[in-house]
């Protein structure tokens, strides 16, 4: 076990622009955690659909600028430095980022390692998507939102994220589930629009893959489904979480699924939304066992256990 979530935040309001929403979530998360923003060593943006379909720089830098996070570092003072980059993998990106953060924190925590050199003690993973136009657009199928999760290292090896497992359905079988692209040769306002196609069978295909990846994870790591308190999952529709928890036999998680339903599909922000909703409902206490299950375009699925 390695990385623990100190605090989360989720923002979905009348704003509809990714940079503002993710920065708002990031700032809210740090404020509520009562953490000096300059102590964030690594910032990762794990979203997909970003303002104006900007390709360069990595979108995280625009979020960092909006947050005012260590914008003018002194190289000799690591407390003024925040290194940032994007991770992109549809709805699974958050779990990829969580694993990367776990590795970065683990290296710093090694007792034989030089203490200060390149220390990563705190990492902030922000996510969330919006229509590239930055405005409400009915063609954008997801909930415009921003989310943030603050990670740090726990010395207790039984806490935090366990290993990450991924699974996939070949595109030859079911298509890619969700296909998001800009068709730049066609006349359109390509800064305002991304073509996002969701397969008609996506909801049931996603449930199948999520159940398979989660079920396989529980088997591999010998985790009793009945011991799972909360399933935090992707949210292609409001009943998905309950159906998934039921499919894998996580009966306790079925009972609380209705508290984790989001107002729309937060896409890349789904997992942070779910954990945040659970935390704010008082469901995340010491000893709570959470199963994170993501499923998305590929089709790809990812699963990790989390011990609060």
């Amino acid at each position: 076990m390695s990385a623990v979530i100190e605090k989360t935040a989720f923002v979905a309001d009348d704003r509809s622009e990714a940079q503002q929403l993710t920065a708002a979530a990031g700032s809210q998360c740090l404020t509520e955690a009562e953490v000096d923003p300059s102590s964030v060593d690594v910032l990762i943006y794990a979203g997909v659909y970003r303002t104006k379909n900007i390709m360069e720089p990595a979108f995280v830098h625009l979020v960092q600028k909006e947050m005012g996070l260590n914008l003018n570092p002194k190289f000799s003072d690591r407390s003024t430095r925040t290194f940032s980059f994007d991770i992109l993998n549809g709805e699974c990106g958050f779990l990829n980022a969580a694993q990367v953060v776990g590795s970065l924190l683990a290296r710093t925590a090694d007792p034989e390692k030089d203490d200060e050199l390149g220390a990563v003690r705190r990492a902030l993973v922000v996510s969330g998507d919006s229509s590239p136009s930055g405005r409400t657009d009915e063609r954008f199928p997801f909930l415009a939102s921003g989310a943030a999760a603050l990670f740090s290292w726990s010395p207790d090896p039984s806490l935090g994220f366990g290993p990450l497992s991924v699974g996939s359905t070949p595109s030859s079988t079911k298509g890619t589930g969700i296909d998001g692209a800009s068709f730049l040769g066609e006349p359109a306002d390509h800064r305002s629009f991304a073509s996002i196609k969701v397969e008609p069978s996506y909801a049931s295909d996603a449930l199948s893959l999520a159940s398979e990846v989660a079920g396989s994870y529980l088997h591999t790591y010998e985790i009793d489904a009945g011991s799972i308190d909360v399933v935090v999952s992707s949210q292609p529709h409001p009943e998905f979480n309950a159906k998934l928890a039921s499919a894998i036999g996580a009966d306790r998680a079925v009972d609380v699924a209705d508290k984790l339903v989001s107002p729309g599909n937060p896409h890349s922000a789904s997992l942070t939304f779910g954990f945040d909703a659970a935390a704010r409902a008082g469901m995340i206490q010491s000893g709570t066992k959470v199963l994170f299950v993501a499923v998305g375009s590929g089709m790809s699925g990812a699963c990790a256990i989390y011990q609060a």
Partner: protein
Amino acid sequence: MTASPSLGYTRLESLGVVHPERSRPTEELIAEMPNPPAFDMVDLTGVENRRWRGEGEDSLSLATDAANKCLSASRYEAADLDVIISASITRFHGEARFQYEPCLARLIKDEIGCRPDAIDFDLGNACAGMLTAIWTLDSMIQSGAVRRGMVVSGECITPITDSAILEISEVIDDQFASLTVGDSGAALILDGSPEPGIARLSAMDFVSVGKSAELCMGMPSDQGNGVVMYTKAIELHKAAINRIPKLVKQHLADRGVAQIDYDYAIPHQTSSRAIATAMELCEPHFSPFPEVCGTIDQFGNTSSTSHWVVLDKYRQDGRFEPGEKMLLLALASGLVLGCVTMTFEEKVLA
């Protein structure tokens, strides 16, 4: 983020670099411009030629070709990879199709035959993407999360040149830098084995200068011409040029070294004048001054693959000896700056 001796040092096990076959000289591009620049582009940038995507070549095909080339030079097979990270800026998959999901790593993973349970994700950090991905994978290996993995990037970037040729209209135009880029693919495999490989990663340091986040921006064209890149070249140069030597100084100071005997340096391939200026400013930190490696004359700025394009060319020419030290300097939109120190292990011939 240094690997201390107790953790071991990550090995660069294999490398594959590909270039499209077609080479286009700068004069040819200038001749197509309705509003050609008033200055000598070759003299200013050092870019004489660049490789240009062929029919059917895109970010995905260049990445896959590089990945397969890397595997053919590797002790491993695709099924041995625990993780694959695609680090390109460009995401072209199909004619003028810029793909957001599925991620490119997933498509490459399936194409080259990785295990279904291999981790895959894209990592983006503009021209510092591959080095950032290497830094990330290094931590994943040294923390025990994975045993070995691939970092790959297929950069189909000359579409921004197509746009620049048509759209440049000012005497000082923000799209001039788009005339310096070239296409390529690069892939490398990292692991934690103590056996000698191509090189060993010794130390890596990266920093983001957020106040300069908007000095170089790539996005779809607003004139219907695919994709564009706007570079405020003067401001970007100013923001980077004094910070690079400061980061090099810190990179060494953090390891208790005032000066170091690097044998080679590979700066990010932006322009020959900017590279020369940056290296000159770094001179106090070197003893002696390293050989500065570059391929900007023949390949231009290949964005995230640049360091590996250079390293591969010099490697093919049999230039590196075991024990020699290399400094890679990252410079990317963000503003991202980075130093990577590595030491060669095997002498690799073409």
